[in-house]
């Protein structure tokens, strides 16, 4: 047998999966619907990441761990007989505290250092949280039982899980609330002012340290809410966080910082793309697909910019 990378049969399976999509069009619709509902959650986490990135100039690798931590809040609530849907309110409150703690202990000291320092520091926190969760909750895959049902369309060919729809609506509502908060409230305006020019904001009497603390904690809270929904829709496990970080990062760079509608579009598209890839290639390629996509997007973007003699900044 010759050393080939992929077996013939594997490639045949990809092609037949692809064919199936053309033979049964509702399947595609199913994938799009599912992808968009999941994508709303990705967009929520990406919104938080773009917020921290834009305001504090910190790429927060801990993003995914905040999501997973929020998920565990939902799991624990479900275990103790409280309906996990309330975790959408409880998890942000807890995660706000977690975010505040990490800001005051660590992020505060690296926020004005060079970018790689803060990147590595948040990477360290991410490993720390992963392993803590592994120790405390165990390495098993957990999910929050919610008891919601499913709607079927097209003779059951297209199904919509109620919880996914609810979660997508909640994600949109939360995102909308965040936007309103940033536009209207005093703190929100201070956050935006700091993002524009931290020095000028300081001169105008804004306590940027407090603004940074609030931004980072708010980001953790948003992630916590997204995580609570993830635990109901999918599953959580201690080591899955990095995947959410990468998704959020991808969405943020595709959309560009401060481009809110871009975040929504990119988030929904990523959800759809992932669902299609999962259907065609199978679940074992899911993580390889996400991380490979990251490499492709980054290299592609830098190539496009390179033609204009620019580079990603």
């Amino acid at each position, binding site marked *: 047998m010759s050393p080939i990378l992929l077996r013939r049969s594997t490639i045949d399976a990809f092609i037949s999966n692809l064919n199936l999509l053309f033979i049964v069009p509702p399947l595609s619709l199913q994938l799009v619907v599912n992808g968009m509902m999941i994508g709303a959650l990705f967009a929520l986490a990406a919104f938080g990441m773009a917020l921290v990135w834009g305001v504090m100039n910190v790429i927060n690798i801990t993003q995914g761990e905040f999501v997973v931590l929020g998920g565990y809040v939902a799991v624990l609530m479900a275990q103790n007989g409280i309906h996990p849907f309330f975790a959408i309110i409880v998890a942000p409150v807890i995660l706000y505290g977690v975010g505040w703690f990490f800001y005051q202990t660590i992020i505060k000291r690296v926020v004005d250092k060079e970018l790689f320092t803060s990147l590595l520091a948040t990477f360290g926190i991410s490993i720390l949280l992963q392993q803590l969760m592994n*120790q405390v909750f165990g390495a098993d895959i957990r999910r929050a039982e919610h008891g919601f049902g499913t709607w079927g369309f097209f003779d059951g060919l297209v199904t919509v899980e109620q919880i996914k729809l609810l979660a997508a609506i909640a994600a949109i509502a939360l995102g909308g609330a965040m936007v309103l908060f940033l536009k209207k409230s005093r703190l929100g305006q201070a956050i935006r002012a700091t993002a524009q020019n931290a020095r000028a904001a300081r001169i105008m009497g804004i306590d940027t340290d407090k603004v940074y603390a609030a931004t980072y904690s708010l980001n953790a809270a948003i992630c916590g809410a997204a995580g609570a929904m993830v635990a109901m829709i999918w599953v959580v496990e201690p080591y899955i966080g990095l995947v959410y970080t990468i998704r959020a990062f991808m969405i943020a760079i595709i959309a560009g910082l401060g481009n809110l509608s871009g975040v929504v579009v990119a988030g929904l598209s990523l959800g759809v793309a992932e669902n299609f890839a999962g259907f065609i290639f199978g679940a074992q390629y899911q993580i390889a697909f996400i991380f490979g996509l990251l490499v492709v997007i*980054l290299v592609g973007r830098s190539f496009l910019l390179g033609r204009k003699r620019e580079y990603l900044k």
Partner: protein
Amino acid sequence: MNMSSKPVLLYGGILLVGIFLPLVFPAFQTQISMMWMMVTFALTWDILGGRMGYNSFGNIVFFGVGMYAAASVQHELYFDVGQFEVISDQFNLQLTSEKYVFGLALGSIVGAGICVVLAWILGSGILALRGQYFAICTLGLGVAVGEFAGTIDYIGAGSGMSAPVFPQAMGSSGLFYSYYFFILMGFTFFALKWLYSTRFGLAINAIRDDEDKAEAMGLHTTRYKTLAWCVAAFFLSFAGAGFGHLNGFIDPLDVAFPGATFGVWMVLMAILGGKGTLWGPVIGAVVFHVTQEFFWSTLLGWQRVALGLMIVIVVVFFPLGIMGWVREKWPERFGHTLEEKS
């Protein structure tokens, strides 16, 4: 670097340690091999991370590719591939000493060749990214390659593959590999010491300090950047080939592409020792490995929590590393006396 006024004594001392340490402590031969491997890791990471300002989380790719390549060459040379694919776990991979050593040598050279080509191809795309984009892209690359390796049947997919058994005629595998890794470390160290003293070293330092200016001065920055990654890939590939054989069993996620352990450690060790210095990675790796071997077993499963904590502490409170601290304390030892002379 004026580490010692008598470098011959220092190098001689290290050589003696390298020769006699595994003989004096036969029970720790594997750990000693791994210590030299860690030094190689930190040194190769520092080429990009410390000297060129490109912080890579994905160098582990070359470690794993080199490992798989070397083991596959052994299989291709001496075994029927179709056979081991079916029963990779039970298959008895016994070889004579000459065959084993020849296979290992050929395998690691082939692996190094593959890794250099791979680094060139990947580098010409990825090294165009700057700063944190490069860091995250390589992070993604490391995970993606590991996951992808787990789906390739030829190398045993997710269930892994076995390297040939170390021939009994050659005695202890620990002794053989502690010398293998010691020689590898020595080669890496002196090759880098030499490289840093050439135009190449100056060029990558210029890229770290200001890439646009370096390019404006007429340096082919892309060429230098890819070359630097190729050098790192070359030495890492040998480390991978050795470790795969030492470990005996190659698993895609835990042995070949262990981003969460080796992949992070190489960054941590270089920073702990002081990145951008020649001796920093060496000291950082030895300190890290010795502490890890002696104290971490007492932590009972909390080691990786401690690892995360350690990264945070080193990065936040100790960013210059050991050598950086020494350099600040005694600048005259590092030739920072030019102002007085001129």
